[in-house]
């Protein structure tokens, strides 16, 4: 037992319904130590962070602060026991000025102003409305507010995302200084270069478990990547029949220089008929916005999208659908009528247009729906209400909707997140089959090992732009993860 240990979380478990977000996660921080918390998408990082900071209560395990069982039932309590978080989204109130925001958390003003200056923000007035300030400034203010309350442990969640590089420098410098004065820091980040520059240790999370504790030293990236990937289930889907259909010559969809404020800056690629195009990206690199833009939810701020040779301006998903572009969103809850039947969910697009508001064409509908159900092997035992289906079957319903109507271009956003292996194995061949029949599929997945299984090519998006387009078939996971982290081959070698 380390006498200087400030925070010690061990054996933390947390489930949401049937989904086990955390199984056995642990983390400790000592005085003057900066510990990185790492993990691939879906490893349970954000749940872990919420538990440590009191925004969620764990099902199991305990959080000790200075050896005493901490009662962190709410963010306010966590704050009082000396643990102050800086979340990914700034927790400042947009409609209050800076001074009122400080009063809300009883933060002393003088040290706050000192920290703001130290962190490199000039010309801030306490009467500025928070909502008028740029995002980067807000993150710095959030950090300054946290530092001003003199925490024992500071938790920084993706602190440097969306910060310009000079501010990143300042943040890293100040964090190091404070650690040297005895503060403990938990540093949640995707960025290897920052972690190796700043941190002393790295705790790696995989599938809800702490799988390793690494001392930061040169070459630690390889070891970390290895730990994050682990011994993945060798999916039988490796045997996916990858008979390539003939990929067309003329692109079905051309994305040219698309920017979507604020996250997406420059994305260009072509999608061909008969092709599955993968998207490789860490969370929050702009892929969400890209998919929503292609699906007609929001227009691009710059650039153009061509479908079948004609430039489009989708104002509503109905426009995209009319152009043959169909979208399966990442969050199933967004796509499903939870309380309605499987059949109604699949048949929903049939009634969408005004011309089909009359009598339902029951027979036509039943044929199409049953065809989709058969093809996807949807378990229809609980078909009365979609919310009673398992996650995998729910996902099949959202895809089945577009199979029933026919699909030219399919946008699949992380279709395998949180579903069972068996369903996954059914989804890859399906995607391949669709491509073989001439559809083109854009396939984003948070699980990198799926890219070589399902895709022909893959675009790598980092920080809102396409950094690379790679041949998916010959890419191994390590290459993909490195690419996703923005690590080029040279950097890795250096």
């Amino acid at each position, binding site marked *: 037992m380390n006498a200087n240990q400030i925070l010690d979380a061990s054996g933390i478990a947390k489930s949401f319904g*049937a989904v086990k977000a955390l199984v056995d996660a642990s983390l400790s921080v000592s005085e003057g130590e900066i510990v990185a918390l790492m993990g691939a998408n879906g490893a349970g990082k954000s749940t872990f962070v919420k538990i440590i900071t009191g925004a969620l209560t764990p099902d199991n395990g305990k959080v000790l602060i200075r050896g005493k069982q901490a009662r962190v039932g709410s963010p306010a309590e966590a704050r009082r026991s000396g643990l102050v978080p800086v979340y990914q989204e700034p927790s400042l109130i947009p409609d209050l000025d800076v001074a009122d925001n400080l009063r809300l958390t009883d933060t002393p003003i003088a040290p706050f102003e000192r920290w703001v200056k130290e962190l490199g923000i000039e010309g801030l007035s306490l009467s500025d409305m928070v909502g008028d300030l740029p995002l980067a400034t807000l993150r710095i203010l959030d950090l300054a507010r946290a530092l001003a309350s003199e925490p024992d442990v500071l938790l920084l969640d993706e602190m440097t995302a969306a910060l310009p590089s000079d501010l990143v420098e300042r943040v890293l410098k100040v964090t190091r200084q404070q650690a040297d004065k005895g503060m403990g820091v938990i540093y949640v980040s995707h960025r290897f270069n920052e972690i190796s520059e700043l941190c002393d240790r790295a705790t790696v999370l995989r599938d809800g478990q702490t799988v390793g504790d690494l001392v930061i030293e040169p070459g630690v990236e390889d070891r970390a990547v290895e730990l994050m990937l682990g011994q993945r289930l060798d999916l039988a889907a490796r045997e996916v029949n990858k008979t390539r259909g003939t990929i067309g010559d003329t692109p079905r969809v051309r994305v040219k220089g698309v920017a979507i404020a604020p996250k997406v800056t420059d994305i260009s690629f072509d999608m061909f008929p008969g092709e599955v195009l993968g998207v490789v990206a860490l969370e929050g690199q702009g892929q969400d916005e890209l998919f929503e833009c292609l699906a007609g*939810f929001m227009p691009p701020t710059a650039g153009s999208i061509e479908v079948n040779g004609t430039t489009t301006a989708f104002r509503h998903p109905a426009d995209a659908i009319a152009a043959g572009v169909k979208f399966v969103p990442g969050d199933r809850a967004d796509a499903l*009528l*939870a309380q309605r039947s499987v059949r109604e969910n699949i048949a*929903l697009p049939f009634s969408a247009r005004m011309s089909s*508001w*009359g009598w339902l064409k*029951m027979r036509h509908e039943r044929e199409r729906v049953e065809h989709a159900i058969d093809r996807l092997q949807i378990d229809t*035992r609980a078909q009365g209400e979609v919310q009673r289906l398992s996650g995998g079957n729910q996902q099949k319903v959202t895809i089945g909707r577009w199979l029933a109507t026919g699909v030219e271009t399919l946008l699949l956003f992380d279709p395998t997140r949180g579903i069972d292996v068996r369903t996954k194995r059914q989804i890859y061949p399906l995607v391949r089959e669709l491509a073989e029949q001439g559809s083109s599929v854009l396939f984003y997945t948070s699980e990198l090992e799926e890219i070589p299984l399902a895709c022909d090519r893959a675009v790598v998006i980092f920080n809102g732009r396409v950094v690379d387009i790679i041949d998916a078939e010959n890419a191994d996971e390590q290459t993909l993860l490195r690419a996703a982290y923005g690590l080029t081959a040279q950097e890795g070698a250096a």
Partner: protein
Amino acid sequence: MNMATTDSSMVRFGRFLRDNPVIPLLAFLVLMIAVLEVIRPGIVTPFRAGRDGLISTFWVGNLIKFAIPLAMLAACQVLTMLTAGIDLSAGIVATVAAFVCATLSSIWGPVPAVLIAMSMGLVVGVVNGIGVGVVRVHPLIMTLGTGLIATGCMQVYQRLVINAGSEIPAVLSWLGTGRTLSMPNGLFLFVPFALFVFWLMRFTGFGRLLFALGSNENAAKLSGVRAWQVYVALYALSGLIAALAGLLYLGMIRQTSLSLASPLLLPSVAAAVIGGTSIFGGRGSFAGAIVGALIIRVLDTMLTLMQMPEGARTMLFGLIILTVTAIYVRITGSR
């Protein structure tokens, strides 16, 4: 994985009631009628000999007769609530339609009068629909506002036609007050109407979309539904139904007034909520609302027999709406 097995029996029971609201509601209706029979013996029993028997058949017929306009206004609420809306202008629209019809039929004859009265409902409904669907004002506020404007218009109109007198078209009187086999003639209008609403909710694309918008508007959008079209059509329909209910009510009361059907508004919301329609959208049944309307009428009789003051009645209806909704939220754990 079968999620259903992990639910508690309470949740499962709640779900059963939610899926089949009519069964427990009918049981409740029968129970209430039984209680009524205890309070006032002989009121219900239809086959008693002599004069009492006549009176009691009369009561059941009356119960149904006065439940009909209520159930029709409840249809407005059920349909709008399917999309997580509400139509608070329904009571006023009904009143306006009745007033316009009564005053115009003495000038232009019954047919144009009825048509103009119905078109009043359509106009208010379309305005509601545009406010809710296009501008996206909360339906409660929007329908309240148009109701206010409609009331003003009616008052102005009243001063214009103050000398015209009023006349109730014979067909409306026949529907409203006549009886066939001791059952009210209003059923001749109501049964086809109810069938139409069932058909609309169950067997049309439009009905599907109502449920879809109320369950998850985002999912509907994702499937290519342009929500505003549905909202405009829905509220227009609701206005038409309200106007029709007003005309029937006119034939029943045979009097015009500037607040004819307004007292029916709150009970119509209560009838829909009691009938298992969720005020949060995505779930509702017109059959339930019909039983709900009957329950409210029985409750009315009971409160009258107990000489409950008007205030207590209003309070009770408010509490019913709140309690049923709160129980719904508790059982389903959702909003």
